[in-house]
């Protein structure tokens, strides 16, 4: 049973902007930091909060944008009761949030959703991430590696300027593969190019050194037997391709899906993803992490 989500006023402890679009924000959110599991997310209000109005309850400083925004938990610093989010400033809400300053207070709801599920006996995980989608994978890698599981990382980005979350993986990854669309960092190509080779080599060899090598500058790294599971997060088209390759290779695959979310906790019914049987799953409650065959990722 996943712990109950909390509504917390969280102080910004750190705010860093990376390149022109990404930012990482640290928030002091004790009970979320304590309970969060990899794959879970928070809903954060994009405007800082003000104190209560005299006599009346001021909910937010502004009603536009109205909705909170979902962000995966990227890292947790338990000692400091901090959570970190890795955000991409794209639309109105995330750009407003990107203006946060340490010391300001933001309202955060979480942790929400179902986390990645690692089964007993799993020894080697492959994390496949694209863009800001690497966020929950970094948390997952850190946590699961600490439990002694081998973790291979395969991250893809548009170009060198948008590489994010990569440094954080060096502390615990068994092997790391970096690709960019234009080849300006790591190998040129898509994650699926590398994934295809990784799965092929893993299924034909029992113990091997990665044939494609590690493009992160650390030289070839040893790759254990085969992957017990793939955990993936990123653009829908990447998730779909990853799921298909995984299925073909017979490797269980969990994907973290994204959908417009009105509430994040199951009451608005907006975040639906079709199941193969035509009914709908709620990304916020049944997900965001799904076994890839549970949902129709193109729906």
């Amino acid at each position, binding site marked *: 049973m996943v712990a*109950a*989500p909390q*509504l917390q006023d969280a102080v910004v402890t750190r705010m860093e902007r990376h390149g022109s679009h990404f930012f990482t924000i640290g928030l002091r959110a004790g009970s979320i930091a304590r309970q969060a599991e990899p794959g879970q997310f928070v809903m954060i*209000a994009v405007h800082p909060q003000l104190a209560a*109005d005299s*006599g*009346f*309850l*001021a*909910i*937010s400083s502004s*009603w*536009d*944008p*109205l*909705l*909170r925004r979902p962000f995966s938990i990227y890292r947790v610093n338990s000692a400091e009761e901090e959570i970190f989010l890795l955000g991409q400033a794209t639309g109105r809400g995330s750009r407003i949030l990107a203006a946060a300053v340490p010391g300001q207070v933001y*309202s955060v*709801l979480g942790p929400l959703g179902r986390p990645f599920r690692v089964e007993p006996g799993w020894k080697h995980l492959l994390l496949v991430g694209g863009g800001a989608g690497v966020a929950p994978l970094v948390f997952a890698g850190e946590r699961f590696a600490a439990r002694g599981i081998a973790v291979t990382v395969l991250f893809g980005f548009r170009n060198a300027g948008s590489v994010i979350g990569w440094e954080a993986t060096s502390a615990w990854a068994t092997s790391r593969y970096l690709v960019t669309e234009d080849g300006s960092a790591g190998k040129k190509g898509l994650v699926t190019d590398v994934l295809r080779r990784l799965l092929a080599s893993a299924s034909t060899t029992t113990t091997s050194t990665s044939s494609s090598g590690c493009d992160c500058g650390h030289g070839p790294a040893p790759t254990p037997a085969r992957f017990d599971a793939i955990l993936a997060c990123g653009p829908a088209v990447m998730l779909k391709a990853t799921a298909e390759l995984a299925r073909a290779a017979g490797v269980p695959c969990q994907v973290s899906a994204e*959908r*417009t979310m*009105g*509430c994040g*906790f*199951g*009451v*608005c*019914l*907006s*975040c*639906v*993803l*079709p199941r193969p049987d*035509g*009914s*709908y799953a709620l990304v916020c*409650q049944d997900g965001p992490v799904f076994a890839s065959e549970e949902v129709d990722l193109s*729906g």
Partner: protein
Amino acid sequence: MRRRRSISLASPVDLSVDLGRGLILANPVMTASGTCGYGEELARFIDLRQLGAFVVKGTTLHPRVGNPPPRLVETPAGVLNSIGLQNPGIDRVIAEKIPFLARLGVPVIVNIAGDTPAEYGELAARLDKVSGVAGIELNISCPNVEKGGMLFGADPQLAAEVVATVRQVTRLPVIVKLSPNVTDIGIMARAVVQAGADAVSLVNTYTGMVIDVERRRPVLARGVGGLSGPAIRPLAVYQVWQAYRALSDTDREGGGGGERSKVPIIGMGGITSARDALEFILAGASAVAVGTATFVRPVTVLEVVSGIREYCQRHGIRSLRQLVGAAHREGLA
């Protein structure tokens, strides 16, 4: 100038509301249908027993999968939704959903939607003796389904027919949820009250559309949706104001002799705080419901309860009833 009695802050305030047919709520604040599911999700954040009533998601005779996504798009200070009444159908709602709320002891009002008057009747009949169900809300104003919905909500005769059908099969209080997408909501309010409604609730969502200019088509899969949230509040307050005027001369069916009884109005649309709720009450609502704000801040509905209580204490109001429609009486000086 209004006189203010100086009373202690701790003096008790009577927040109870009589919705008719014996349905008395401890306080005037309820959840708005479709914004709080069937209670289990919200129960993780608040104690539902402190609500005036819990109004469940719109329920139909047969299960509905709802509309394809995208179902929701944000607008300035609002959201446009097209959920399409996704629900497990009345039988499963009765078997699996209502017991949870009934156990808590919070009055449950079931919001129902049908394609025909007969379907509304059938739904109401099945609910009539279900333990825990305190009232029925007829959703005759949903803009997000092909049939029924809006049609009934925009035609006083059709609406009256639905109400009359339901009235015959249930002794539960019948609340009719009105659409604001009409020229004169007062006509609709009078029609349903004359047909036997015990109360009216308003507003449901306003029909709207957002277009994705890059893809050159509406964002929502069904094109149109219903607008809710703070953006509509001034419109909704006005609709309650108008409905209150229209109902001022209309007796509640069975109101009997003696003092002229007003038909209670349940006001909603963009309520985010006690201040907002008080706007509706002063405009003529006896009770209020919180919808979209729950998405943003699940504790809102209880903050509204305590905020109204504080307001009454601060202003020396002993009974909330003193405030209902007070903005009409204080005049425009």
